[in-house]
C-alpha cells in the first residue's frame, strides 16, 4: 500500500457532504494525488453517509479501509465506522459524539470540533464550509485557490453568499492550522496537471466522444448519473434526451434511433437491464446496433440500491434468447471509462451488434485524477451507406457485416425484421436461409475479436503469479502490484470481458498461480475464463457485502493465498 492519509467525513444525507468533497478534491488535486469515494445510504435525508478522501504523494486509484482522520458531523455514526478505526485514527466531532467506552476500546484519539457551533454567527448551513476550511487548514492547502473555488461555485447566487462562505472558510482554516502536525504527506513541487473527474462524467464524456446523440432511459441508481450528465449537454452537443416509460421502451427507443441513423445509448442498472433483455435480442436479430451502459449494484432484485458489486457479468454476457454476438467492455479507471465508452459506439456501428459498458457504483461515484488522453476521431465515422433501389439490408457477406442503410438516405428501402428473414428483410421460414442468416450473424465474432480491447499487464513481466481483475478492482490491484516487494507478481486488467481473445491465453500459460479478484460471490470472470479460454484459476478472492475492495484489505487477502 502506498503511503497515504485517508480522511473520512461522516454525516447524514442533506448535510452537504458532496459539496465539501468536490471542493476538497479539487483543491487537494492541485498539490497531491487524491482519490475519493462515497458510501451512501438509500435515503434522501438522515442516515449515515460517508465520504472518504485519500491523499498521497504518489498516484493512487483506490480507497483504503482504515481511517486516519475522521470527522463526525452527526452523532450515532461512529458505530458503523468502528471497524475502520484504529489506534492511529484521530477523530474530530462534537463532545459526546462517540461514547467514552467505545473510544477507549478502539484507542483512537478524540478532538472536540463543533462546526455547527462555529457556524452559529453565519447560520447553520455554513457548517460544511467551516469544515472545508478546517481540513484545508490541517493540510495547509493553497488558501487563495480555495477561496476562488468558493467564489466560482456561489457567484451566481449573490455576493453576500460568496462573502459569508469565504468568511466561514477562513474561520475553519485558521482553526485547522493548529493541527498541521496530523498531516505528514509531502506535497508535490510540480504536480502533473490532471483532470479531476468522477466515473459517471467519464462515461458521459465517452458517450459524447462516441457521437452519442440520443439517450432514452428510465431512472435507476447508479445508472441515472449518465442520463443526468447528457441531459445537461442537450444544447451544446445536440443530444436528444427522453425519459422512457420503462426500460423496455428505453431500449426499443434506442434501437429505433440507431435504425434511423442516430447513435443511441441506454443507461441503467442490473434490474433495469433485466427488462431490456428482450430488446437485446431484438438488436441481435435485426442487427441494429445499440449501446447500453449497465451500472452494477448488488442484486438480486432491488438488492442494495446504493452500494457496489460486480455480479452482472453473466447477465450481460448471456442476456437475450437465441445466439448472436455482442461485446462487453468493463472499464476500471477514468481514462478507460471515456475511451471504452467512445469505442462502444464505434464497434456497435461497425459490427451492428449490441455493446455493453459494464461499470459499477464504486467506479461511477468515485472521483480521481485522469491522465491526458486523446480522443480518436475515427470512432465518429459512421459505417452507414447511401442505399440504391433494390437495396438488401441483410446481404450475405463473408465477414457477416451487411452494408447498413437508413430510411430516407438513398433510393433503397430499409426493411428490418425480428422474425428470421431473407437478404431483403422479408420473413422466411426456409431452413436453409435460417442457417445462412444465423451463420452470417455469428461470423461477426471474428471481427469483434480483431478489434479486441487489449488487456493491460501491470507489474513485472517475469511474473509467476498472475492476479486477474476487471472493472473497478483495477485501482486496488494496480496499487498492490506497484507496491508489492515480491517481484514475481503481475496484474492482468481485462477491459473487454466478452468475447475474450485467445491471445490472452499466453498470459495464463506463464503463471503458476492465477488469482482472480472479483466483487461478487461466485467468481463470474473466473467461470468465463474457463468457458472461453479453458483457463483454470487457482484462487478466487471475492467480496459481496456491498462495499468495494480496499487496498489494505486486498493486500491482506492476497497474502493469504500467495
Amino acid at each position: 500500500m502506498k503511503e497515504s492519509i485517508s480522511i473520512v467525513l461522516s454525516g447524514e444525507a442533506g448535510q452537504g457532504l458532496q459539496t465539501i468533497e468536490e471542493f476538497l478534491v479539487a483543491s487537494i488535486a492541485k498539490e497531491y494525488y487524491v482519490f475519493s469515494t462515497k458510501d451512501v445510504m438509500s435515503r434522501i435525508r438522515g442516515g449515515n453517509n460517508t465520504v472518504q478522501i485519500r491523499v498521497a504523494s504518489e498516484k493512487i486509484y483506490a480507497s483504503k479501509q482504515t481511517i486516519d482522520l475522521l470527522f463526525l458531523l452527526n452523532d450515532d455514526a461512529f458505530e458503523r465506522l468502528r471497524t475502520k478505526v484504529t489506534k492511529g485514527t484521530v477523530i474530530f466531532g462534537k463532545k459526546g459524539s462517540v461514547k467514552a467506552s467505545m473510544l477507549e476500546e478502539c484507542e483512537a484519539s478524540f478532538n472536540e470540533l463543533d462546526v455547527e457551533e462555529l457556524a452559529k454567527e453565519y447560520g447553520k448551513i455554513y457548517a460544511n464550509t467551516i469544515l472545508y476550511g478546517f481540513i484545508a487548514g490541517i493540510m495547509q492547502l493553497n488558501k487563495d485557490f480555495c477561496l476562488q473555488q468558493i467564489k466560482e461555485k456561489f457567484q451566481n447566487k449573490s455576493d453576500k453568499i460568496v462573502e459569508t462562505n469565504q468568511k466561514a472558510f477562513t474561520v475553519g482554516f485558521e482553526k485547522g492550522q493548529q493541527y498541521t502536525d496530523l498531516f505528514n504527506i509531502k506535497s508535490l513541487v510540480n504536480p502533473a496537471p490532471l483532470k479531476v473527474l468522477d466515473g459517471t462524467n467519464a462515461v458521459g464524456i465517452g458517450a459524447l466522444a462516441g457521437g452519442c446523440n440520443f439517450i432514452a432511459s428510465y431512472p435507476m441508481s447508479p445508472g441515472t448519473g449518465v442520463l443526468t450528465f447528457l441531459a445537461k449537454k442537450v444544447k451544446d452537443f445536440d443530444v436528444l434526451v427522453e425519459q422512457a416509460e420503462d426500460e423496455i421502451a428505453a431500449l426499443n427507443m434506442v434501437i429505433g434511433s440507431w435504425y434511423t441513423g442516430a447513435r443511441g445509448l441506454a443507461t441503467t442498472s442490473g434490474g433495469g437491464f433485466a427488462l431490456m433483455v428482450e430488446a437485446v435480442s431484438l438488436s441481435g436479430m435485426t442487427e441494429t446496433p445499440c449501446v447500453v451502459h449497465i451500472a452494477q449494484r448488488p442484486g438480486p432484485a432491488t438488492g442494495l440500491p446504493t452500494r457496489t458489486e460486480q455480479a452482472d457479468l453473466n447477465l450481460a454476457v448471456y442476456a437475450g434468447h437465441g445466439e448472436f454476438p455482442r461485446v462487453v467492455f468493463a472499464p476500471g479507471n477514468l481514462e478507460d471509462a471515456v475511451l471504452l465508452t467512445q469505442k462502444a459506439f464505434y464497434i456497435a456501428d461497425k459490427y451492428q451488434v449490441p455493446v455493453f459498458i459494464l461499470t459499477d457504483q464504486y467506479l461511477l461515484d468515485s472521483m480521481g485524477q485522469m491522465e491526458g488522453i486523446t480522443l480518436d476521431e475515427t470512432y465518429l465515422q459512421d459505417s452507414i451507406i447511401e442505399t440504391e433501389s433494390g437495396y438488401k439490408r441483410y446481404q450475405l457477406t463473408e465477414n457477416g457485416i451487411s452494408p447498413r442503410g437508413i430510411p430516407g438516405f438513398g433510393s433503397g428501402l430499409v426493411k428490418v425484421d425480428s422474425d428470421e428473414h431473407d437478404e431483403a428483410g422479408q420473413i422466411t421460414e426456409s431452413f436453409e436461409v435460417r442457417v445462412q442468416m444465423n451463420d452470417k450473424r455469428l461470423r461477426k465474432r471474428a471481427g469483434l475479436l480483431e478489434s479486441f480491447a487489449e488487456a493491460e499487464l501491470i507489474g513485472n513481466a517475469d511474473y509467476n503469479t498472475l492476479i486477474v481483475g476487471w472493472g473497478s478492482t483495477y485501482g486496488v490491484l494496480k496499487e498492490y502490484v506497484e507496491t508489492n516487494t515480491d517481484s514475481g507478481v503481475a496484474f492482468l486488467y481485462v477491459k473487454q470481458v466478452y468475447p475474450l481473445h485467445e491471445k490472452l491465453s499466453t498470459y495464463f500459460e506463464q503463471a503458476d498461480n492465477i488469482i482472480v479478484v472479483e466483487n461478487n460471490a461466485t467468481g463470474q470472470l473466473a467461470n468465463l475464463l474457463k468457458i472461453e479460454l479453458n483457463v483454470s484459476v487457482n484462487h478466487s478472492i471475492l467480496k459481496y457485502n456491498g462495499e468495494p475492495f480496499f487496498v489494505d484489505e486486498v493486500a491482506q487477502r492476497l497474502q493469504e493465498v500467495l
Partner: protein
Amino acid sequence: MKNFEFEQELDIAWCPGCGNFNIRTSLIEALQELELEPEQVVISSGIGQAAKMPQYIDVNYFNGLHGRALPVAVAIKAANPDLTVIAEGGDGDMYGEGGNHFIHNIRRNPNIAHLVHNNMVYGLTKGQASPTSKKSMQTPVQTSGVANEPFNPLAVALSLGATFVARAFSGYPEQTKEIIKQAITHEGYALVDIFHPCVTFNKINNFKWYKNNCYQLSADYNRNDFNMAMEKALDVEHFALGVLYQKQGQPTFEQQLPVYQNNQQPIVHRKRDLDKVSELLSL
C-alpha cells in the same frame, strides 16, 4: 403500378376473407393519394397477424417485437422528423402487451399515425381473448367465457389528451382510407382503431356483426367537441365510425425537444464535433 405495391407476387400469410386484406388496400391507397414516396415512409410494427402489414407493402419498415412498435416509432420520428412514421399492430399487440407504451405515447403526442387492427381476438396465437374481446366470449383459454370488461381504447386515448381519435371498419375500405389519410396528415399522435373480422377465430364479431353494430357519425358531427367525442367513445352498444375527435395546433413531441428548438435539421444529419468534447477533458 402503384408505388407501394410489390412487383413480384406476394405470399400473404392471412386467411382468405380476413379483414386485413382490405386494410392493406386502404393503407396503400392512402399513402399513394398523399403522394408520399416509399423512402420517406417508415412503418414500425409489432408481432401478430396485423403486425405483418409492412411485409406486404413496399416501404421502409422496422418489424420489431410484440407490443413494442410505439417506442420504436417514436424514436424514429424523433431522430428524423422528415420521415412519415406509422405504427401498426393488432389489439393484443398494442393494447395488451404494449399497453404501457400506448398510454405514455398519447401523453408524448408524437407526430405519428397509430393504426390498430382490432379484431377483438388474438389471431396469430389461435384465438385467445384480447383486451377488447367481448365479455363472456368463450375461447380455448377463457373456457368459461371472458370475465374482464373490454378495454376501451378510444375513451382511454381521449381521456389522456390524444389529439386525433378515430374508428374505422375494414368493411368500408373507402372510408378507412380517408381516415388513414387524415391520421397521417394530422400533426400529432393519431389513433385509428380499425375494426375487422377475424374469420377464423372470432365467430361472434363477424362481418355482419360489425355492420349491424356500427353506425356512421353524421355529416354535421363536430369533431372538435371533446365531450361529444367522449360520449361517443363510451357508447359500447353502438360503435361510431369516423373521426371522433381532433384537436389541432398542439405541440408535438418532436417540436418540444430542445434539439429542434433552434435547428430543424434532423439529428441524424448533424455533424459531430470532437474538439468540443475534448474541451470537457481539459483542465
